[in-house]
């Protein structure tokens, strides 16, 4: 398809807003938070933020192109303004002959999610006409009011209309719910211009009506709107059944049996497409018996409230616990949402449901103490919307983490709730925080505030995208409230159950798996400059950047990123000799990608790492993958079956899994089924699995893999060359990072030497560390400058690389030396490099006579021979052969003679 051109009719001025928030080192670009645009001659400034739906100038003035803004970026000079968008098509843009495929008359305001790849999704930011919310005068929508809303129900992939796959909407950043059911097609405009309206199913471009915001908060308004909703019978059915289910659940306290108790409900549930059943299953699993009573009470409470539509009064005891000034506000919302669920599930706005659910959550949170109950509630919360087909909004998968967080916010005294706040922080941050939490249990209060701050970051961002128009003081309060709610929705998409388990309960593994007691005395910090240099040069210290692997980094990054973006799978084989930074580069790539996904630039993904060396049997790979994926521990066979199922069916969470298989060659089995499976899964349609494999040899696929395995591995190969001396030097320099501990020449010597030998960066670092030690020991010399000099490096190199055989021969006892001479003499006599002990011993005796030594007995001679054999100066046969054992030299004859000569002189 053609690129969209820009034709400026009205002169607009575009300016980046906010500070550039990321530096994408890969693309050399800056990302921006929002774009300010103003029309020349007018005062009004419009702010466009990612996540909003924008109109883009096109050929047709009346119907500009529609897209959803994903991200802004610009180059370093800030000259070019670019934006990444997700296109939507109007029916008019669909080719005429394909329009019939729709099979019904289209709604005038209907647009289609564009699935084709022909369209460049990078546009010039200056072609943006505006967002509909802010410049309604500018928008070429002729009709005001309700008609201003566009709807997405189907996707168009240039061949056919499809039901919009909810996954597609997922790669929109932030708050996209993971499990939306069928997108709805509400016939009537809903009054939502609220932040959360970015739900995938129904996109509402808001009316300019300023009452919208107020309406969003008010129960009656929304309900009125919703009641106008029209829905398909199927949807109605499922909604009905869902509400039935929840009712039945309330009545019967048995959670596990809930589905079984109401088979009819279950059957009906199956009518509704998507993952209803899995939800139900999840629910069943999560439900826990012991918290029944409390929960029932709470649910009854809320349900009764919803029945009666009594706002707040029945809940007053709980409300008193709510400390925030918004507590009151939240309650009506909650009530409304519940009542709405029953009355007209399709019509109400996202924001309301969101706030409502949060409200429920909060209320119940206050009542129920144990974490299990949260699991139940969360699943309740998460499942019900989906059953009601509120997929648009839907909160993500039962997010234990979120719940635990809320728990901690509401009742800080529960230690179990001291959980990391947000997945969205980078891995380092999270781990850091975990450590903090483990170590500074007394400091919880401070931590809370930290956590809250963290939580608010994404939420504020989500907020910005939609509630820009709120300016007044009064509305700031609303905003704040919404921020809280938005936070939930914004954070939840990143939650994944298995990660969640490990993150939510950081203390659990501590108690479950015994660990080495932590040190009683804290580690001392490095004192002088050499200590500091040594710490920096330790292989384990993580460098700020990975120099000299930029190209490889880029290639792997692009590979993984494209796979994650496309939601496809693939394999990559990476080879290279040890110590060339293979694993480190991949970890760096993953770190960057995690960061990117935290910044909502790419969809979230899971990273799993296995190492062939760290398992006792190749089949353990299945067990480990499954354990890291779902936290189950099963036998290898069972794990293989489960993984097979997992990767051949659509995954419950539409996220890509990145699997790093280190030391691939150790996964070799005779039938090679482990390797086969690892490379076969990515080819499955629903797997969304990216497999990165690492091994040492370049031709591993050709050498050890049978054809069908090698073919599946494919040809995406990469090989890490050993470092050259310049690269090694750069690595050391970057690690030292201006700590002046080495002379330039010394560094060059190390790197040249290592580059000539192996190109192993680990070796290089080890030598440098040893050199600092030597330097430190010789520092008593008054002449020394404190810098590591050539002599120190030479000494370290000698220590590490020189063979010790010659010294060992020099230090051997006289009889041992004599025996070695006898061996050489016998070899010369035989003309062979092998002799029996008996033969050598004859020589030995003769030699000792020549030397004027008393001949030793055979037993002693054997002892001498064995000693030499233990040092591996000689290679011996098994000693049970006694005198007949054959003797060979493990050193060259010249070396032996040289060493012996040196001794004599």
């Amino acid at each position: 398809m053609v690129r969209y051109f820009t034709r400026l009719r009205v002169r607009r001025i575009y300016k980046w807003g906010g500070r550039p928030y990321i530096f994408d080192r890969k693309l050399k670009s800056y990302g921006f938070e929002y774009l300010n645009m103003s029309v020349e001659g007018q005062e009004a400034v419009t702010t466009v933020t990612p996540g909003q739906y924008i109109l883009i100038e096109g050929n047709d003035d009346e119907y500009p192109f529609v897209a959803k803004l994903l991200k802004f970026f610009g180059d370093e000079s800030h000259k070019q303004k670019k934006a990444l968008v997700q296109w939507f098509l109007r029916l008019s843009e669909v080719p005429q002959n394909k329009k019939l495929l729709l099979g019904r008359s289209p709604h005038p305001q209907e647009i289609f999610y564009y699935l084709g790849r022909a369209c460049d999704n990078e546009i010039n930011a200056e072609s943006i006409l505006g967002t509909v919310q802010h410049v309604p005068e500018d928008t070429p929508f002729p009709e005001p009011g309700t008609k201003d809303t566009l709807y997405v129900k189907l996707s168009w992939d240039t061949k056919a209309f499809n039901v919009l796959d909810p996954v597609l909407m997922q790669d929109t950043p932030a708050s996209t719910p993971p499990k939306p059911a069928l997108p709805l097609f509400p016939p009537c405009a809903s009054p939502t211009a609220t932040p959360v309206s970015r739900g995938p199913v129904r996109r509402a471009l808001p009316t300019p009506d300023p009452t919208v915001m107020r309406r969003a908060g008010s129960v009656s308004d929304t309900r009125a709107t919703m009641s106008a909703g029209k829905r398909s019978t199927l949807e109605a059915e499922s909604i009905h059944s869902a509400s039935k289910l929840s009712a039945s659940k309330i009545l019967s306290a048995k959670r596990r049996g809930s589905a079984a108790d109401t088979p009819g409900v279950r059957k009906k549930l199956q009518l509704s497409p998507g993952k209803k059943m899995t939800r139900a299953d999840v629910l069943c699993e999560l439900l826990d018996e012991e918290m029944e009573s409390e929960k029932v009470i709470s649910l009854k409470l809320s349900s009764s409230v919803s029945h009666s539509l009594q706002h707040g009064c029945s809940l007053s005891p709980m409300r008193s616990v709510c400390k925030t000034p918004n507590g009151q506000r939240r309650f009506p919302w909650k009530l409304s949402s519940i009542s709405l669920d029953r009355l007209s599930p399709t019509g109400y706005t996202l924001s309301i449901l969101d706030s409502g659910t949060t409200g429920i959550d909060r209320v119940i949170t206050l009542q129920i103490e144990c974490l299990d109950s949260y699991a139940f509630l969360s699943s309740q919360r998460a499942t019900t919307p989906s059953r009601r087909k509120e997929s648009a909004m839907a909160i993500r998968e039962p997010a234990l983490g979120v719940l635990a967080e809320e728990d901690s916010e509401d009742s800080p005294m529960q230690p179990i709730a001291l959980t990391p706040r947000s997945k969205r922080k980078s891995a380092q941050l999270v781990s850091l925080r975990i450590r903090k939490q483990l170590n500074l249990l007394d400091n919880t209060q401070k931590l809370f505030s930290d956590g809250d701050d963290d939580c608010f970051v994404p939420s504020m961002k989500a907020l910005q995208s939609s509630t820009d128009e709120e300016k007044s003081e009064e509305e700031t309060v609303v905003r704040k409230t919404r921020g809280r709610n938005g936070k939930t929705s914004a954070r939840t998409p990143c939650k994944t159950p298995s990660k969640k388990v490990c993150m939510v309960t950081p203390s659990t593994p501590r108690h479950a798996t015994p660990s080495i007691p932590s040190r009683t005395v804290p580690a001392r910090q490095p004192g002088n400059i050499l200590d500091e240099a040594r710490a920096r040069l330790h292989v384990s210290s993580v460098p700020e950047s990975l120099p000299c692997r930029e190209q490889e980094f880029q290639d792997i990054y692009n590979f993984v990123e494209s796979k994650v973006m496309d939601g496809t799978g693939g394999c990559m084989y990476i080879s290279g000799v040890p110590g060339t930074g293979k694993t480190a580069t991949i970890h760096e790539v993953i770190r960057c990608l995690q960061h990117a996904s935290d910044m909502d630039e790419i969809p979230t993904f899971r990273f799993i790492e296995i190492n062939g060396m760290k398992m006792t049997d190749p089949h353990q790979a299945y067990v480990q993958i499954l354990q890291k994926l779902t936290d189950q521990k099963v036998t290898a066979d069972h794990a293989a079956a489960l993984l097979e199922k997992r990767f051949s069916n659509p995954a419950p969470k539409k996220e890509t899994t990145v699997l790093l298989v280190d030391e691939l060659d150790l996964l070799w089995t005779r039938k090679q089924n482990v390797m086969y499976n690892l490379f076969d899964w990515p080819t499955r349609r629903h797997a969304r699995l990216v497999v990165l494999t690492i091994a040492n040899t370049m031709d591993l696929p050709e050498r050890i893999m049978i054809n069908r395995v090698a073919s599946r591995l494919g040809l995406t190969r990469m090989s890490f060359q050993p470092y050259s001396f310049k690269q090694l030097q750069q690595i050391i320099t970057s690690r030292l990072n201006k700590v002046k501990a080495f002379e330039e020449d010394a560094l060059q010597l190390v790197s040249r030497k290592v580059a000539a030998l192996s190109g192993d960066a680990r070796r290089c670092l080890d030598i440098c560390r040893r050199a600092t030690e030597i330097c430190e020991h010789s520092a008593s010399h008054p002449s020394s400058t404190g810098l590591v000099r050539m002599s120190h490096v030479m000494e370290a190199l000698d220590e590490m690389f020189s063979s010790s055989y010659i010294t060992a021969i020099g230090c051997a006892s006289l009889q041992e030396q004599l025996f070695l001479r006898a061996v050489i003499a016998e070899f010369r006599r035989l003309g062979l490099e092998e002799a029996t002990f008996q033969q050598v011993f004859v020589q030995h005796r003769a030699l000792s006579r020549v030397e004027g030594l008393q001949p030793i007995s055979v037993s002693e001679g054997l002892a001498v021979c064995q000693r030499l054999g233990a040092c591996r100066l000689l290679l011996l046969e098994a000693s049970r052969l006694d005198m007949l054992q054959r003797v060979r030299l493990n050193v060259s004859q010249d070396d032996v003679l040289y060493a012996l000569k040196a001794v004599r002189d």
Partner: protein
Amino acid sequence: MCTLSRQRKGSIHELVQMILRERFCHQRLPEKPVGMESQHKHLLELLRRTAVHGESNSVLIVGPRGSGKTMLLNCVLRELLEVKDVNKNVLPVHLNGLLQTDDRIALKEITRQLNLENVVGDKVFVSVKESSSRPVLFILDEFDLFAHHKNQTLLYNLLDVSQSAQAPVAVIGLTCRLDVLELLEKRVKSRFSHRQIHLLSSLSFIQYLDNVRSQLSLPQDFPDTKFYDEWNDSIKTLCEDQSVVDVLQRHYNSSKDFRSLHLLLMLALSRVSASKPAIKPTDLLEASRVCMVDSKANILHGLSILELCLIIAMKHLNDIYEGEPFNFQMVHNEFKKFLQRKSHSIHNFDKPVVMKAFEHLQQLELIKSMDSSTAKIQKEYQLMKLLLDHSQIMEALQKYPQCPTDVKQWAMSAFG
């Protein structure tokens, strides 16, 4: 009065034996390792950094048997644990390649020593990952044997931990193989820091003598000062005795390590009694004779005349066929020839009797079957080789009590 002093003397010589025996049997560490100061400093510094700074390290201590590797390490550990901060901070884990013959056993042992017994298998390494944990010192005795484990999984994991930002560990390997690095798989090798501490004693004979003297001398804090002076004086004169110096020189030539020296001194020490409260040069000479004795020649002394004759027959066969293997039939023929032609004193033996004697020799491992599959071939025709040197046979014959002269002559004659 007399008995009292004897008792006192008795108790004194027992005390001396106790003190010196502790020394010779390696039950007590020496105050300071001798002749390895730089290595000691290096290792101590390294382990101290692990213990105090939490820096991970790996090191190999390489040296021939009896060169003091374990002693050095134990000295360093003792010194390290004397530091108060370190004492409660480090967790030493001792593994031995001869005991932990595979990774599973080794892991079990690690978990046992770390008191993590309810952990199974690979989880150890998971739990090792907490960086705040105490430094763990993994001491791998007979390091080379760990390199023979399947895939070297244990070494890979230990060294990987030492090279990554996990729990601080120090991996200390003790081995006598100089080529130990060649045993490591390339990935394991890359993760090893290539620090090697070589213990190669370049002890001169003078130092060796000094060492003998100090080893035999009583410590300063010996209760009876009179006896202390007497004993140390006698040791001093002992070490100046020429015959003793010769004996020690011979031992020094044979091996420089302290273990064989201790064996010698131990034998001499055991001759000290209440009536003979000092080591005399003769004691040392006798001890040296015991140490140097050829074990096979000793076995030959205990053989019957018939068995000795068979050995001699085998010797002749070896001479004739230049070391080619022989079988019972050949030996029997040779023996019969001797009986017919030369023997006056030895009667004819039945063949089964000779066979029995032959089998006895095989049991004593003086002869060794060359065929691996013994079942197929008849006993008489199994090929055998003699595991004795000519010199050993002749030496044994000289010392054999009441050896008939014709047998001696037969042995000495060329070609039977």
